[in-house]
């Protein structure tokens, strides 16, 4: 530490020498081992007083100690100055490095941004002076974890160090996954004022990790994934299953458009289907397609790519396997239905023969009991029939013959079929004035089934000796059926349940009627296949009326091709229809 300082070395040497001699003499005198006498001519002379000698020695030692202390202090000052110079250079170098290589944001303890560097402007897209003075929280992305944000906030306010990952947002709204370090500027002579926020943009790393994870996962899926641009339809990504169907490599797939995936791809129809996605009316569009390799179901969603461009993601699922399962299910339900029908045939047959009196007259009580048994076996039959129908509709097995039909015939057949049932409840079915003819397109038998369900429902809810009114009238370019009863009406709080399977409701009078609760569900589904909607209007204590309209063939109203999913008419929620007061 003293090297290079010559004067100090000699001074230290003499100081230490003097100090040593002084200490030795002082010790000798103190113990009385040395008597010093001075004479000019050999005669005993004046003896030097011991106390003067001690005084001289003490003075000498004090001088030496002072010299030594001065030297040490001077060296210490020099050392401190040297360190300070080094520190200043290091800090300057650090600052220069941070400015050059880091995204820096200086935040004052109140949370406002004091200064940002050029890298910050480049990374976040702000112009110089645009973000300064604003709260640092403007940089937070909506995905940012609130607990982490609170922790950062505390560190900024109290000058604590913090390191971690945080979702930030660029000026254009894009998310940035950032690795952040907070380094509070602690100056020894001043209180805490600001912190340095050093940001590392790790978005690409994270995206690369995510992309890797997603692509490896997507590649292994059995379902086919198609990602393509919403405007140009150019393919961005196909997973392995999709590429296998198309016979493309990953490289060739990226040179194709989604319209190249099918030989007769109808771009106009595709645009029509996907329009609700672009307009935000729907989140997902489902389409069933007849692909050369078999029936497939396509679910399409609109997303935003990494470049911010809109892209469609279609998931294509082979329906062959699902059809097999559905077929097996139908087969099972059909078998159960058959097995139940056989014993029911015997039960119902026996009861009917007993009731007829062919086998002898029954007592009044016996006839009553037989009637109860008969009614309940009818109920069982309805349940079996309804479950079978629902399952068939659900599996797409209920074929609809979309022929030109006369709805007047449908009305007549429905009334004829249900007359006896209504008689059992002492209720009359009236048709009022029907038109001469009402041409439409649909399945005669299924529409009779719809009216049967509505009529039996109305009969069940009608009062004794009541009347159910079946109407058929013009409704613009369509024909409108109506089935109205004078029953207790549907309570307000139960209306939303109408049409749900097994939603067997009590009327406003609190009485439950026999039935499965499946009838209206079947009605809705059959009407949906016809592109029609079911509405109702009900007043508590004032009866209920159901309506549906079918296109008038004479007006040329088209009915889409159901199998290709072109007529996926929405079934308007009944409660919404009720709210509209339709009827």
């Amino acid at each position, binding site marked *: 530490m003293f090297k290079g300082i010559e004067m100090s070395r000699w001074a230290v040497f003499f100081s230490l020498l003097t100090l040593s001699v002084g200490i030795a003499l002082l010790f000798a005198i103190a113990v009385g081992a040395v008597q010093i006498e001075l004479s000019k001519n050999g005669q005993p002379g004046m003896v030097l007083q011991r106390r003067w000698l001690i005084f001289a020695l003490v003075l000498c030692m004090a001088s030496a100690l002072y010299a030594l202390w001065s030297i040490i202090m001077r060296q210490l000052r020099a050392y401190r100055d040297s360190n300070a110079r080094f520190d200043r250079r290091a800090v300057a170098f650090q600052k220069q490095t941070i400015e050059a290589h880091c995204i820096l944001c200086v935040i004052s303890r109140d949370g406002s941004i004091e200064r940002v560097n050029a890298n910050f402007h480049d990374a976040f897209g702000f112009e110089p002076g645009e973000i300064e003075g604003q709260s640092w929280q403007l940089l937070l992305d909506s995905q940012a974890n609130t607990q982490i944000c609170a922790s950062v906030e505390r560190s900024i306010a109290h000058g604590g160090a913090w390191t971690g990952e945080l979702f930030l947002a660029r000026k254009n709204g894009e998310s940035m996954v950032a690795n952040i370090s907070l380094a509070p500027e602690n100056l020894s002579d001043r209180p805490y004022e600001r912190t340095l926020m050093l940001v590392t943009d790790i978005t690409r790393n994270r995206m690369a990790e995510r992309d890797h994870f997603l692509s490896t996962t997507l590649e292994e899926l059995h379902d086919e994934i198609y990602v393509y641009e919403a405007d140009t339809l150019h393919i961005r990504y196909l997973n392995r299953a999709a590429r296998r169907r198309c016979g493309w490599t990953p490289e060739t797939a990226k040179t194709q458009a989604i319209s190249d995936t099918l030989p007769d791809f109808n771009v106009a129809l595709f645009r029509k289907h996907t329009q609700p996605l672009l307009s935000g009316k729907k989140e997902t569009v489902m389409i069933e397609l007849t692909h050369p390799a078999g029936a497939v179901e396509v679910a399409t969603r609109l997303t935003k790519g990494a470049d911010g461009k809109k892209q469609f993601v279609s998931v294509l699922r082979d329906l062959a396997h699902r059809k097999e399962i559905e077929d097996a299910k139908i087969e099972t339900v*059909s078998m159960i*239905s*058959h*097995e139940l*029908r*056989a*014993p*029911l*045939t*015997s*039960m*119902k*047959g*026996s009861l*009917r*023969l007993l009731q*007829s009196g*062919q*086998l002898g007259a029954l007592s009044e009580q016996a006839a009553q009991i037989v009637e109860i048994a008969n009614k309940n*076996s009818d109920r069982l*039959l309805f349940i079996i029939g309804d479950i079978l129908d629902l399952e*068939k509709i659900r599996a797409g097995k209920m*074929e609809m013959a979309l022929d030109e039909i006369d709805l007047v015939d449908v009305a007549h057949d429905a009334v004829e079929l249900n007359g006896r049932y209504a008689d059992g409840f002492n209720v009359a079915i009236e048709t009022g004035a029907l038109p001469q003819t009402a041409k439409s397109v649909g399945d005669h*038998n299924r529409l009779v089934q719809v009216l049967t369900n509505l009529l039996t429902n109305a009969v069940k809810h009608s009062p004794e000796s009541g009347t159910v009114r079946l109407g058929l009238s013009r409704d613009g370019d369509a024909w409108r059926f109506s089935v109205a009863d004078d029953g207790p009406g549907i309570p307000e709080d139960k209306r939303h349940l109408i049409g749900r399977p097994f939603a067997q409701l009590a009327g406003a009078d609190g009485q439950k009627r026999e039935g499965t609760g499946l009838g209206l569900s079947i009605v809705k589904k059959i009407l949906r296949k016809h592109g029609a909607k079911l509405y109702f209007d009900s007043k508590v204590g004032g009866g209920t009326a159901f309506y549906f309209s079918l296109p008038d063939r004479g007006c040329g109203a088209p009915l889409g091709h159901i199998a290709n999913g072109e007529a996926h008419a929405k079934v308007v929620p009944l409660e919404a229809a009720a709210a509209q007061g339709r009827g």
Partner: protein
Amino acid sequence: MTLRRILHVDDDEDIRTIVEIALKVVGDFELRQCRDGLSAIAEAQAYKPDLLLLDVMMPDVSGQEVRAEIAKLPGCETAETIYVTAKAEDDFTDKLRADGALDVITKPFDPMTLASEIRDIWQRARRGTGPVSVPDPG
């Protein structure tokens, strides 16, 4: 051709009893019944029925097979068939009709109207297309 003799085949004894009452007591038909397909083929040889009233799903041979075998028997070539089945799916009953059956009655049926229903089907077939020919199953 008048409908007189009916051969009913069903493996369910209870249903056979009900059909017997429905056709003999209520309908006044001449009726014989069998519990399975093989005994029905043997019975038909001697009975020479005008109409076969056949269950479809039976343990040994199906109703369609019974019909095909009986149609090969001498004197039974013109015997008509009405199936009585619990398998009520449209496509299935349509197939049975397309294969030459006069009609299909689905279970459960009303025993009080079974006889009249069979007569209606028979007469409708006579009126509509004249004598109904039973195609050679072979």
